[in-house]
């Protein structure tokens, strides 16, 4: 079912890309979903591990990759962070123009120190952000992202949206990248964004 939906979405994105290309012949094509002009995902207001409040404006001049996750996650989250690190490496010098932000959906367990250790294990420049329950909800809502606690045994795990959101260097939300994309596809989309900006 998810497969069918994914391909439908991919097809729709592909058609949209073709239509655009047909219009002016030069519109960029992305492996991800072009959401330029979205009236959501405009900003966030969360704390970094040093306790400083960070908003999107702090990262002007950088291409920001933002995604939601939690450190108790043994699968999708490390995969997403590993992919982001691979992407950054493969961008070479342009990798320094990228800021990766990991927003926890589990602020209860993801303490500032844990977030710092965790994102730092993938790349020292990656930043973990967290808010209280209310700020977390507000941020997820702003990004149309879903998350929920799932009880297990004596504890809980989380379900959450696995898109990576990409902002350009002017702070505009541009792309939504599905989890099924590879590091190479991520890098290609970033290069396309960078090329079309300069």
């Amino acid at each position, binding site marked *: 079912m*998810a497969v069918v939906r*994914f391909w439908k979405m991919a097809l729709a994105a592909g058609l949209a890309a073709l239509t655009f290309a047909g219009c002016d012949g030069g519109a960029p094509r992305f492996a991800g979903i072009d959401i330029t002009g979205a009236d959501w995902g405009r900003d966030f207001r969360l704390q970094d591990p040093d306790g400083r409040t960070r908003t999107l404006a702090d990262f002007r001049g950088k291409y920001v990759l933002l995604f939601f996750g939690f450190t108790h996650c*043994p699968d999708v989250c490390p995969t997403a962070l*590993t992919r982001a*690190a691979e992407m950054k490496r493969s961008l070479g010098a342009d990798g320094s123009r990228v800021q990766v932000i990991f927003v926890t959906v589990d602020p209860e367990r993801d303490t500032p120190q844990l977030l710092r250790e965790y994102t730092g294990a993938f790349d020292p420049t990656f930043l973990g952000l967290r808010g209280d329950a209310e700020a977390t909800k507000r941020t997820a809502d702003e990004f149309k992202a879903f998350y929920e606690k799932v009880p*297990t045994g004596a504890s809980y795990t989380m379900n959450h949206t*696995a898109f990576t959101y990409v902002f350009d260097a002017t702070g505009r939300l541009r792309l939504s990248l599905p989890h099924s994309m590879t590091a190479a596809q991520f890098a290609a989309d970033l290069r396309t964004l960078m090329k079309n900006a300069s």
Partner: protein
Amino acid sequence: MRSILLASALCLAALPAAAQVTVKDPWVRATVPQQKATGAFMKLDSAAGARLIGGSSPVAGRVELHEMKMENNVMKMREVKGIDLPPGKTVELEPGGYHVMLLDLKHQVKAGDVVPLSLVVQTELGKIETVEVKAPVRPLNASAGGGEHGGMHMDMKH
């Protein structure tokens, strides 16, 4: 001759003997010091068919079986009561599917460490057996399948 061999192979497979669960390529994902949970991954084979129903490890306060699924770009995680190991079929516990979840970690698990795991399996006849596994720890940023599959292989693979 071939049919006799086949027949005896089938008989052997049907014998109510040990579950004969073998584990290949087990690994545990490393953690950072403050992290209290991680996943263990492996390939399981059961000659006679069995069901993985739980486990324990000296490094973890609790061990659970979890399943990860991507549904409409939402990552869904849930606990499962058991994972069927059909006879003659390799069941892979790997990123993008099932894993053994190690919770309430007693200490950090570091790349290069070896984590002992006791897996509990139930045979087709209901007998409970334990399979001892020594799982090497791979770095936190290890790719799915230890690189042989590249980074990901979930909904896309068809």
